[in-house]
């Protein structure tokens, strides 16, 4: 290293070094600014998404107002649009998905967290997580050719015989139905319920289990009366997250629900969901008001999923906090 010979030279070098350091610190600010700009882009995109949906749907809101949500006719030819059949279909299939999926999912999560050895549990959890990666159009493809015939040939006649006195299980089924939509959704939400519930169950402190076992409880009593209640908020959170998925799910439901815009009480009858009608009619819609009505449906779906998602995150966060605090 060559040292400057004069005092003045040394000073110059020092101030140059300081200037250089400052420039580098400016570099810090530049890096901060660049990453901030990209992070802000995410906010801009989300805001734009909300704005575009809201304004593109304005003609429908002006013409129908709140009646849009309660109207039962969907007639693109007469330009009369009511969203209730789709809201009904979306809610019924999602509810069905939860009724079938939650017991299965929570059961599997309890098995993986409480009984299975850790290595086996991790392996099985990975296989189940792979289920979440399967594209929804593949679920739809399989459902059309396996689930729908199976429901038509075996399940609906059986259900009709056993519980035919309930209006939900009456009538002849062609296979494509609310029941088919709900069943495929149940399978699709399973991995979300299982992997998150397993995580929150594993996060329950060990001493909770040990205390219960030491008091003489069996392993099941420990799991059901101690561990599950401790993780309750997290499990409910995973269910909400699954619900948000089910509400917004498009392709698989579109392929098996039957696409009939009427409110049918029987689960064996075809129905229609919000996402399905958008998928089917959007590219064929010719009139501006038809497109705007479909976008308004999208806006309704957007709002519902935001609320459900927010609730889910809040619940999962609560359990994590509780587990960490204990």
């Amino acid at each position, binding site marked *: 290293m060559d040292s400057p010979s004069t005092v003045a030279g040394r000073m110059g070098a020092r101030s140059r070094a300081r200037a250089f350091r400052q420039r580098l610190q400016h570099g810090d600010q530049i890096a901060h600014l660049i*990453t901030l700009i990209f992070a802000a882009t995410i906010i801009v995109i989300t805001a734009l998404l909300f704005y575009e949906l809201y304004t593109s749907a304005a003609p429908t809101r002006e013409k129908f107002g709140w009646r849009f949500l309660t109207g039962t006719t969907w007639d693109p030819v007469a330009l009369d649009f009511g969203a209730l059949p789709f809201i009904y279909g979306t809610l019924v299939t999602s509810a069905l998905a939860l009724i079938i999926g939650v017991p299965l999912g929570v059961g599997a999560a309890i*098995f993986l967290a409480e009984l299975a050895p850790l290595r086996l549990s991790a392996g099985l959890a990975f296989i189940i997580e*792979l289920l979440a990666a399967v594209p929804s159009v593949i679920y739809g493809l399989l459902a059309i050719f396996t689930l729908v015939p199976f429901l038509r040939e075996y399940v609906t006649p059986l259900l009709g015989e056993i519980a035919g006195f309930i209006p939900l299980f009456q009538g002849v089924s062609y296979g494509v139905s609310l029941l088919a939509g709900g069943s495929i959704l149940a399978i699709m939400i399973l991995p979300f319920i299982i992997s998150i519930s397993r995580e929150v169950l594993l996060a329950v402190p060990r001493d909770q289990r040990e205390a219960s076992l030491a008091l003489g409880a069996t392993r*099941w009593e420990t799991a059901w009366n101690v561990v599950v209640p401790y993780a309750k908020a997290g499990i409910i959170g995973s269910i909400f997250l699954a619900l948000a998925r089910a509400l917004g799910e498009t392709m698989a439901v579109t392929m098996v629900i039957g696409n009939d815009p009427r409110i049918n009480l029987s689960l064996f009858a075809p129905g229609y969901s919000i996402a399905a009608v958008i998928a089917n009619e959007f590219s064929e819609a010719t009139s501006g008001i038809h497109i705007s009505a479909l976008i308004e449906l999208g806006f309704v779906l*957007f709002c519902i999923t935001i609320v459900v998602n927010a609730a889910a995150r809040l619940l999962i966060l609560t359990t994590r906090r509780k587990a960490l605090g204990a």
Partner: protein
Amino acid sequence: MITRRTRRKVTNFVMFTLTGVCTLVAVAVLFFILGYLLWQGGHALNWNFFTKLPVPVGETGGGFANAILGTAKLLLLAAVIGIPIGFLGGVYLAEFGGTTTSFIVRYTTDLLNGVPSIVIGIFAYAVVVVPMGHYSTFAGGIALGVMMIPVTVRSTEEFLRAVPNTLREGALALGATKWKSVATVVVPAALPGITTGILLALARVAGETAPLIFTAFGNAFWSPGWNQPTESLPYMIWKYATGPYEDWHQQAWAAGLVLLSLVLATNIAARFILRRQVGTNRG
């Protein structure tokens, strides 16, 4: 008479067996999907599928080379849009963000992640298709790119946070500025994880159909450039599976097998890369 003790033991056994059955059902679904697709798609699949265009119904031969190329082009566009925003957004959250701004960005990202894919499609339709006046590869790529962003942000942030603070402090102690320590020490340390996260995000959007229906639309022919409607694997599966012809169903199975293999292979590879990464960090 059954004692209380026996009853409790039996309950214990029965309930855990039931939970085991639940697990078995979930795992069986994956193997059923894989097996059925292999069986149906395996004997439908042949080399023509990768090289030829679709032929009219009734003619034999033909393939879906245009759909494969279309999916590749859509993914390329999605990567160009999704990776810079997702990656730098993630870097911001992990390294630069203040408390309030980070909270807002993180919250918005979660919100965007929860938006149904069909709604993302409407968004791309409103901002790209309407101004351009027609469907295009470009519009489809933007829709998929937007879907990639939240997944990439969260995985990038997570892997950057996993980098030990001692590395940052070491770099700073040696006189590196913050951006230099981030760019030359922290990001390289987290790079395998970040890359895997990006690959998983790509695999996820590769199978999306809903956002493509009214953005990329579909196309029975090649789609030159970026400005025309294009075929893609998921869209083709939807169209062919819901169509009335047996030929089409066969093609849908074959395309489904190709798409699923792609997605699952990426996921499994990611798993192994990450496991090795964790191993080296510990060692």
